[in-house]
């Protein structure tokens, strides 16, 4: 299973963290420090895998952002690499050519998307279309709510004029 997902920028800044196994806040900080120390200093031609404290870390760099997942020792690394890519493709489709800035400001949306893809550390849906449908269903609800809110506020605004 996936123990955690980290998105870390090249400068070592945390962009997203999702923990599927219990880690205390202190442990989390330590994990992030250790992994970014290992990962950011690796050359471009080396493996995308790291052995780390009995577990395996699979990472991939997209532009200046590192996506990294920690998995069990008997999991399939290449598959995990593709899970990462799958996630990035879904993000790309959702944001429209996703860039790091999108994730910085919309980290909560990235969380929602990740929740549709991976649940409790296992990949739950491998169809991009299905994930996209679910997300857009949720978003349409959000839009509806917003329109409602704005129409009400418009009414109020007009009434108070």
């Amino acid at each position, binding site marked *: 299973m996936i123990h955690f997902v980290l998105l870390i920028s090249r400068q070592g800044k*945390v962009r997203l963290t999702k923990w599927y196994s219990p880690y205390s806040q202190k442990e989390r900080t330590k994990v992030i420090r250790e992994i970014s120390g290992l990962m950011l200093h690796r050359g471009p031609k080396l*493996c995308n895998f790291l052995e780390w404290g009995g577990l395996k870390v699979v990472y991939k760099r997209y*532009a200046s952002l590192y996506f990294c997942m920690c998995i069990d020792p008997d999991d399939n690394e*290449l598959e995990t690499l593709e899970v990462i890519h799958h996630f990035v493709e879904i993000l790309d489709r959702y944001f429209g*050519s996703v860039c790091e*800035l999108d994730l910085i400001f919309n*980290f909560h949306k990235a969380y929602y998307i990740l929740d549709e893809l991976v*649940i409790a550390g296992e990949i739950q849906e491998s169809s991009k279309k299905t994930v996209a449908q*679910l997300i857009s269903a949720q978003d349409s609800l959000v839009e509806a709510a917003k329109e409602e809110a704005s129409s009400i506020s418009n009414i109020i605004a007009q009434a108070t004029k």
Partner: protein
Amino acid sequence: MGSQGGFGQSKEFLDLVKSIGEARSKSEEDRIILGEIETLKRRIVEPDIPKRKMKEYIIRLVYVEMLGHDASFGYIHAVKMTHDDSLLLKRTGYLAVTLFLNEDHDLIILIVNTIQKDLRSDNYLVVCAALNAVCRLINEETIPAVLPQVVELLGHAKEAVRKKAVMALHRFYQKSPASVLHLISNFRKTLCDKDPGVMGATLCPLFDLVTIDVKSFKDLVISFISILKQVAERRLPKSYDYHQMPAPFIQIKLLKVLALLGSGDKQASEQMYTVLGDVFKKCDTSCNIGNAVLYECICCVSCIYPNTKLLETAADAISKFLKSDTHNLKYMGIDALGRLIKISPDIAEQHQLAVIDCLEDPDDTLKRKTFELLYKMTKSTNVNVIVDRMIDYMISINDNHYKTEIASRCVELAEQFAPSNHWFIQTMNKVFEHAGDLVNIKVAHNLMRLIAEGFGEDDDTTDSQLRSSAVESYLRIIAEPKLPSVFLQMICWVLGEYGTTDGKYSASYITGKLCDVAEAYSNDETVKAYAITALMKLYAYEIAAGRKVDILPECQSLIEELSVSHSTDLQQRAYELQALIGLDACAVESVMPSDASCEDIEIDKSLSFLNHYVQESLEKGAQPYIPESERTGMLNISSFRNEDHHEASMHGLRFEAYELPKPMVPSKSPVTYTPSTELVPVPEPSYSREVHTSTAVPSISNSGSTELKLRLDGVQKKWGRPSYSSGSTSTSESSSQKTVNGVAQTESVSTSTSRAQATSSFDLKKPQVEISPEKQRLAASLFGGPIKTDKRPTSSKVVKSSSHATEKPPVAKAADTASEKSTPVQPPPDLLDLGEPTVTSSAPLIDPFKQLEGLLDQGENVSAPNHGAVNANKASDVMSLYVEIAASGQSGGAVNPVPTNGDDMLSGLSGMGIRTASPGGPAGSSPLSKGPNLRDALEKDALVRQMGVTPTSQNPNLFKDLLG
């Protein structure tokens, strides 16, 4: 959205994110976040906060927590938000609590009720949100509260809900298997769900269930096979395709399950062969996901009952992996090789050079994986090369976790395959010296026992040689600074027992050394206890032998120091020593007999020698003894006694007798090992050939026992006692032994063999001329076993061109290293790495936001068509150039006009990624759109400007398209 800013949040929040982006150091970031925490603490308790505002506060809390700070003051507000009726807010609430709370948090009890309500909701999105939370938050105690509802949701109309319900049940199973065991039939049902997503999700719990109990799922073999067949034949909806592979993630899961079901089951395995062959054939090896499936196939084939044809296919796939240029595939190849080697041990030999390349690769990950492979293929013929390499590597790393692992592997291999006692002691010394505190204490005890008991052989000379070589090596090592405690204990014990046995060293010399140790490690009581007991033994032997004992002054002061020690244990030992020195030779002889650590101490448990005394006392009117069990109103003494006993065994020397060495019955050993050999699904083909090792090797390598136990009963056969092996094998053994032990001898041996058999072909290593002789020698020593023929091509090349080869190596090596060095310099063909050089130089300097703000006006000036152009660039589909599609031919169909050369593309793309507002941005990319891209991107661009974040060439990274 106007006033809210571009991304739906307030200016305040955007400012926060921006300032974090601008922070130059971790401490600055921390300061900003601490300020934010203060603000939020104040704001969040204000009365009548509008809900939308509250939602933003919660998201800000998530941000704070994500950056590693404590936001626990706001948890309760997130919990409250889950109670809200609006899905929008509820979703945010659930997101926050799943991120904040671990399953054992107290607040969870407040959410359970909400979850229960939401699981009953009519809106499937609400149910989904609740199920997400269930997966993260429900713990063992709260499972019963939601279980019935979750089970009911397995029949929900929406497939998304069914899928999440399955995943939730899987989570329950992980938390508390008993809670869902009665639901196994439900999993069987959902496996047949018409939605592939639900079916795929069901494979997760089924995999776990099958792992625990294979037998009760054998009936599903047919179903899994037919599903896999359908998937491979592209019967699933197109949307499950991923990079032209049909539902690869589902395929991988299925292969994992099949591997479990087919393991050791011939009948089940036979049903799988056809479909596995199909999947093998259909794997697209030019893309990463294809290789992932292929790797899983190899794993499956190596687990199930072996099939020659499939094994060949797997071996071919492995050699493709190993010959690949990318490290990832090499890594997978090495791993797969390690799996297959259990079934067909000869497969490694054809890949020897690839393996050695990986071993010497600068990439640590690959190196470790290769060590794992070597560990699996260790035999008595190559053990010293492998273990020496492992130890060298162990010394060079700092990672304690891995150090421990590799140290215990060294110990295990040395114990199983050591070619000679001397080598064994030396190896163990190295391991203890460099990783002594990391290895299990049992290893030290076993080694002591081994030295004491010898190897169960009859003649004592080998044993005493072993001991004196141990003593000698320890005396050499003892002066080294900062030895691990465990190692010192062992040294003290051995010196005490055998320091003076061979008469080479005088007692005063050894005692002096022991005193030095006690002094140098005066903080370590255990070491001191070992040292003083060793002193006692040495003096005892001297007295018993009738020699005069002079106690060195430093020794005297040590005894005095210890007799007033805080530790009663040390005190007792010191007093015992003093008392012993005062005794006469005869008494000492019986108290401390020489070399008696293996003797049985007979204990008269009934204390019959006291009978007389007891009788007398009773006659004088003493109370008779009442056994503990018959006494009333007394404390339970036995528990005290146990503790006492425990403590006694905790520190200090073991005074109780070691086990008696088991009588050696070589013919029995296969019988002894049967439980472990059962784990091996297949009898290894090498059994007949390597008679002398086969009994122990396969069973040990497969037993998977982590217990570090010396197998004293197996040792004798392997440690060079040719009398047990048949004539023919012993000759092959001896010659191969030579190859291994003396590196220099390798060539001579291989020469003869290569001349003898010049027929076998070896197409694999065509570019071999460049291979340095050192490497070849290593290969020969690693792989060259009894099977000489396979080694021939390597060595024959050396021989044929021996005159060149011997002179050439520096050149060849230089070429090697040169090419190695030059490779990293070349711009990597990785799409995403191209921006690197500029990034590195500017990274610390760039201020992603500040410089942009000034450009706001300019940004507004930029005309719409310009935007269009820029975005069109951005939109050009780069995804198809996804780097992992290693073969450049694959990308031929891509949009980019220059598809073959990755670098060219990159330079174009990196420019595009920058999304500059400068007119006439990078040209040459076709404006092919990807999804709703163009408009989105336009909007995004505009929004970004509104927020005051203007893209410039100065901070390309944040704006760079992640996929291009």
